[in-house]
């Protein structure tokens, strides 16, 4: 059963290929560092410090501008790990929350009353509570109740660490908004489209997958972009449950070195860059998905 969306496939296929390839590389790099602890290539001692170390060190000595993570290996490594954790957390949450959004929207329009109620309850719970409170709740209240795993140093640890809880909490939080965003897209698809597909013999899941979702997606990309941008920025809250992400590490560095200004500027530049990449990708996606004559 062919999808009705086949127009303009040349440029969009190329776009998907490059996005998928880039995502795979980023994911592989961070999965590697998370699983094996060490980065395959040491960017700090191998590239950053030889290139920028001299300049930044003398900048500190002459002008008092202390960008310490560009010349000191320990700080460099932990800053890089922090940024890596932020990117990895954002990546996991963007993917997971989008999947949750689609599944939730599907559940919302399903025939089963139970499914619809579960979806509604989920949205109420996760959309109507602050993400910081959720994280605290999961990490401090829920985590101790779950089974523990023995470690090699003799102390049983909870099943999930702070990173996992942050990923779960943020994915479900953003996912709740995504459900509503996808619903708004789905409801924008004219009823006649569904009827036409049903008349052609499509089953309900087929209608959803091949007709409603592709059209709905195009309607809701702008608000989806909004929510995902928000999600990436909200990853900083993981700081509160000790996830060593960028803000956490920056705070550790400025507490030790009293270079608050430099670290604040770093944070700004980093997040502006990170969100810019996400927005650029979403805009490219929007363009690649455009069907001439539909919508705009």
């Amino acid at each position, binding site marked *: 059963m062919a999808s009705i969306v086949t127009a303009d496939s040349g440029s969009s296929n190329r776009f998907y290929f490059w996005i998928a390839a880039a995502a795979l590389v980023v994911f592989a790099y961070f999965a590697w560092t998370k699983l094996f602890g060490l980065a395959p290539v040491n960017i700090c001692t191998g590239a950053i410090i030889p290139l920028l170390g001299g300049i930044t060190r003398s900048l500190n000595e002459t002008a008092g501008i202390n960008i310490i993570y560009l010349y000191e290996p*320990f700080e460099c490594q*932990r800053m890089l*790990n922090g940024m890596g954790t932020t990117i990895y957390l954002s990546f996991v949450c963007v993917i997971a929350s989008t999947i949750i959004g689609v599944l939730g929207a599907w559940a919302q329009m399903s025939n089963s009353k139970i499914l619809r109620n579960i979806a509604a309850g989920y949205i109420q719970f996760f959309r109507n509570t602050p993400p910081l409170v959720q994280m605290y709740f999961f*990490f*401090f209240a829920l*985590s*101790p109740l779950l089974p*523990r795993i023995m470690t090699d*140093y*003799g*102390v*049983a*640890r*909870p099943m999930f*660490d*702070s990173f996992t809880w942050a990923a779960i909490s943020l994915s479900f939080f953003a996912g709740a908004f995504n459900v509503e965003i996808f619903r708004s897209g789905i409801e924008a698809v004219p009823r006649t489209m569904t009827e036409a597909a049903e008349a052609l013999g499509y089953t309900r899941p087929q209608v959803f997958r091949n007709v409603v979702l592709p059209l709905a997606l195009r309607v809701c990309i702008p608000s989806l972009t909004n929510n995902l941008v928000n999600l990436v920025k909200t990853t900083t809250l993981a700081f*509160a*449950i*000790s996830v*060593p992400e960028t803000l*956490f*590490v920056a*705070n*550790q560095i400025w*507490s*030790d070195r009293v270079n608050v200004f430099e670290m604040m500027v770093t944070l700004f530049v980093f997040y502006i860059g990170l969100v810019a990449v996400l927005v650029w990708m979403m805009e490219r996606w929007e363009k690649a998905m455009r069907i001439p004559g539909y919508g705009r």
Partner: protein
Amino acid sequence: MKHGFKIFGVIGFAACMLTGIAVAGTIEDIKKKGTLVVGTKADYPPYGMLDSTGKIVGMEPDMAADVAKRLGVKLELVPTVASNRMQFLQQGKIDLMISTMSVNDERKKAVGIIEPYYYAGGVAILVNKAANVKSAADLKGKPVCAIQGAFYNNRIQSEFTGQDLVAFKGVPENEAALLGGQCVGFVYDDVLLIYKKTADGEKWKDYDVVALKEFDPVPWGLAVKLEDKDTEWGKFMAATTAEWLKSGTLLALEKKWLGQNTEWLINASK
């Protein structure tokens, strides 16, 4: 004419400053007031805390009471926190500050820190007995809880654990994470951990307080106004502190409030 007024103003101001310095804070002034005003902590058990009636009690209030007794005046305690204790002294709101203040070079320039130092805080870890930690070297590869921004965090991570700390803003979060198993131990000021363990033995029965000897204790100093340091008042406090150490008064007070004696104080009292 305008300039004339300005100069008068400056001279007048300087005169006020000078007389202020000359009069306030001296022993005669305190005796004339009949009251010694001492700034202590009210939220740092067992050194300065509130009892059930709201009175400030603890080891440092006891020291302050002894000073008042020696001067033959009444005692008034003023609760201070780290961010206002030196200012209170500079403004003359308090005559003496005994407020768990660690000594460093910047503080020496701001207030008159009295030597000998009366106490010292080291670094310790409240650690799960199962983890078998005897020193900082045993922390390698283990998750450790800490307060965000504490001065020893960097060294713990770079020299000992080799991984990111499980750091939180406050003590309660760290306790919850420790009891919840997110880390093997909580690195913090040794005296507070000892007190915690003594005060709440049942809760911490599976945990030990292990001193991290790799970190040198940072001495605490009591302080008078900077200008008073070399006057009669400063000298009186220096002599009193030396006498407290020599006579074992501080050891007795520490035993009373903390339940045990710390190594630094035992050595300083010899």
